[in-house]
């Protein structure tokens, strides 16, 4: 069995059990329900900003966009203004497509060698499930804002209505939670089913998957099976949001598991690969215009370097140049 998988799973289980025990002991509920959430929130925000600052501190010495279409050139040649942008607007559109639609992942192909031929088939499962995962995560996150806002904004109620649209029965099944779980499960299965990918995967690749799977799982468990007292939960969360925290009675230990794992996710976020969420905005191959021939890009540390000048060159070859009838600066 793969150690990276086992250890990640064990870590999530241990963390969950810890929260369950803590949540069951009234003396520790304050720690898991109040102290840790605050710490996690601060570490998330602080960590996120720290990471961004760290990236921003390093300059971008060269203009190195990866061009994925025709450059701007002669007036009659159709310029691909988005995949090979020369202006800020082009870059913004390119970035928006990357971030909102995962444009580059949409190119994904699978190379297969059959006999003496290599074929490249479009392979969009990764794109699809990645997109489902991120959008359902976003929807769940936004929906959770109902716990922290009073009155609940209309947009959240509306989102919930859309989310529950396809379902009847009580409680209404919200699609985003189910999709989130399914998408994470797919991402995990894909990772272990592809031998090369499994070979190169680290614990850091499994851990967030297990973590989010468990968060979504406990959430759904609370909603559909445990039917936790939502009013009590809202009392807790509103206390946190208004900085008058208290632990209401009647909070199920599972809520502490759910909440604690969310806190773990928040703390883990800025120090892990999950920071790709911020990093994509800083990727020089995507966020730069291909205009370095039009407008000079400045490298703040451009070094002054001695090179072999023409003078040195002529000094080395003068005789031969004169003999060959090549013009020289100095005749001897």
């Amino acid at each position: 069995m793969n150690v990276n998988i086992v250890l990640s799973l064990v870590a999530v289980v241990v963390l969950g059990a810890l929260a369950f025990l803590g949540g069951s002991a009234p003396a520790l509920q304050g720690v898991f329900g109040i102290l840790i959430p605050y710490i996690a929130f601060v570490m998330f925000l602080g960590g996120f900003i720290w990471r961004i600052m760290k990236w921003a501190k390093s300059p971008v010495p060269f203009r190195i966009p990866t061009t994925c279409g025709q450059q701007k050139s002669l007036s009659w040649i159709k310029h691909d203004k988005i995949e090979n942008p020369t202006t800020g607007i082009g870059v913004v559109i390119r970035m928006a497509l990357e971030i909102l639609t995962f444009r580059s992942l949409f190119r994904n192909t699978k190379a297969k060698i059959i006999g003496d031929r290599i074929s490249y088939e479009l392979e969009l499962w990764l794109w699809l499930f990645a997109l489902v995962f991120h959008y359902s995560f976003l929807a769940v996150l936004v929906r959770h804002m109902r716990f922290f806002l009073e009155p609940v904004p209309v947009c959240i109620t509306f989102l919930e209505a859309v989310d529950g649209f396809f379902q009847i029965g009580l409680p209404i099944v919200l699609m985003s939670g189910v999709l989130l779980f399914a998408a994470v499960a797919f991402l995990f299965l894909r990772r272990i089913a592809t031998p090369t990918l499994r070979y190169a995967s680290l614990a850091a690749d499994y851990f967030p998957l297990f973590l989010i799977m468990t968060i979504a799982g406990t959430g759904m468990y609370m909603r559909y099976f445990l039917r936790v007292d939502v009013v009590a939960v809202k009392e807790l969360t509103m206390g946190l949001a208004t900085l008058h925290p208290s632990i209401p009675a009647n909070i199920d230990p599972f809520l502490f598991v759910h909440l604690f794992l969310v806190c773990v996710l928040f703390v883990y976020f800025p120090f892990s690969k999950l920071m790709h969420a911020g990093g994509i905005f800083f990727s020089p191959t995507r966020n730069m215009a291909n205009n370095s021939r039009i407008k000079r890009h400045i490298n703040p540390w451009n070094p002054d370097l001695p090179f072999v000048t023409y003078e040195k060159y002529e000094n080395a070859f003068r005789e031969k140049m004169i003999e060959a009838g090549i013009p020289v600066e100095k005749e001897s």
Partner: protein
Amino acid sequence: MDIKPEEMIKIHNPIPKKSWMDTPPDLSEGKFCYPAKAKTMEYLGIPNARDWSPADEDWKLPENWQQIIHEGFKDRLDKYRSLKVFMDICVRCGACADKCHFFIGSGDPKNMPFLRAELLRSIYRNDFTALGKLLGKIGGARKITPTVIKEWFSYFYQCTECRRCSVFCPYGIDTAEVTMMGRELLSLLGININWISDPVANCSKTGNHLGIQPQNFKEIVEFFCEDIEEISGIKINPSFNRKGAEILFVTPSGDAFADPGTYTFMGYLMLFEHIGLDYTLSTYASEGGNFGLFTSSDQMKKLNAKMYHEAERLGVKYILGGECGHMWRVVNQYMGTMNGPANFLEVPKNPITGTVFENSASTKMVHIAEFTADLIKHNKLKLDPSRNDHLNVTWHDSCNPARAMGILDEPRYVLKSVCNNFHEMPVNTIREQTFCCGSGAGLNTEEIMEQRLRGGLPRANAVKYVHEKYGVNSLACMCAIDRAALPPLMDYWVPGVDVTGLHELVGNALVMDGEKERTLNLRLEDLPGAEGDSDER
């Protein structure tokens, strides 16, 4: 090559049982590039020069090598946001994995771009991140050892810096950038390869990678002119190092040195003569290519500096650049930044058509395909494409012009104007998705022929497809490394396909003022419909 193509394409490379961190690289003969010679390295001022072999157990690393790597790494993290971001944000989704020609052709998992980058990233985590320090191997971190250095050497010289992986990565992570940093770090330990350092040294000494001295450069070009006279009856007298010319023309020295690049050079000369261009060649800036790109940004800058230096000395208005791949990455993405501003030059304008090349307003260097496309569009060239009728052509987009510039349709326009039979390769293998020749970034060296043939497999396989389907027999390109690397690749995988430069085809089709009836093409072979051909009928 001992292995037959039918065997080589059966890629079987079982995934090692042990973790990749514990799997040492294969550095047996044939699996590595020969190292740079001590005296070359000394000439270039690269530290820790010594004579050694990658096959040796002991690489004679300098005493404080760990410290050198650590500090060199830190220095680069502080200088390059790209490196810092790329070290942090890869999610190992694997989308880039089978996009790399070396992975497709070898099946070696460490040739998956993201695992190639992990080789560096694991050290980054250990040296520069808290989580890596805390968790060690479980956190994806490992300490640097001589074996890691060997692994870097092996795999950073199995990457042609082609950027194909970057096209498919959802965050645009460019493993070429990681490879460049990895090679720079190795260079700090005096680890470099001969095929790159020799050309770099030559280029600074003689002005070009091949070490051609001024008088020989002139002789070579004059020799081309004799051939041109034989073919067309027209005598050309190009000038060298001539002050006051309007344009300085710079092309990779490979075009002057080896077939089939030489025919492309002849094509340039014929074109310029025909339109009466006021240009000059330089024996000092006689290299458009820049092997510095494959070593370090410093070497790149030093070699590139000569172009502007010479343009200023000669007092030309702007620079016209020949067909080359990595040269154009340097010109487009580095030249202005490194050695500009070129305020002594003017915004390039085609003297024949009056077209102003706004897209090179700052760098003031125009690509010959842009230039020729403009001439053809304005009907300034009389062309007889039927002279290329014996050719059935396909177009190879070179990595750098495609993915670090985007010059895709200009050469296609020229190509379609000068030949009648043209077929594209499959869509996943052209334009921004083009496949590397397998020999770029300084890997065009004999001793790793198997690796090159494997890396070139995806490209060759696409050519094979159009060869079988449409009878394509000519692979056109605009890159000097391609013109050297593709012929052996074709001989191995797709015999019967020849390699040609764009301006060779232009030279053939061009009907020059006052030329005689042509019976020979630029290769001095009979033209279709001319004597040789009629014999067969």
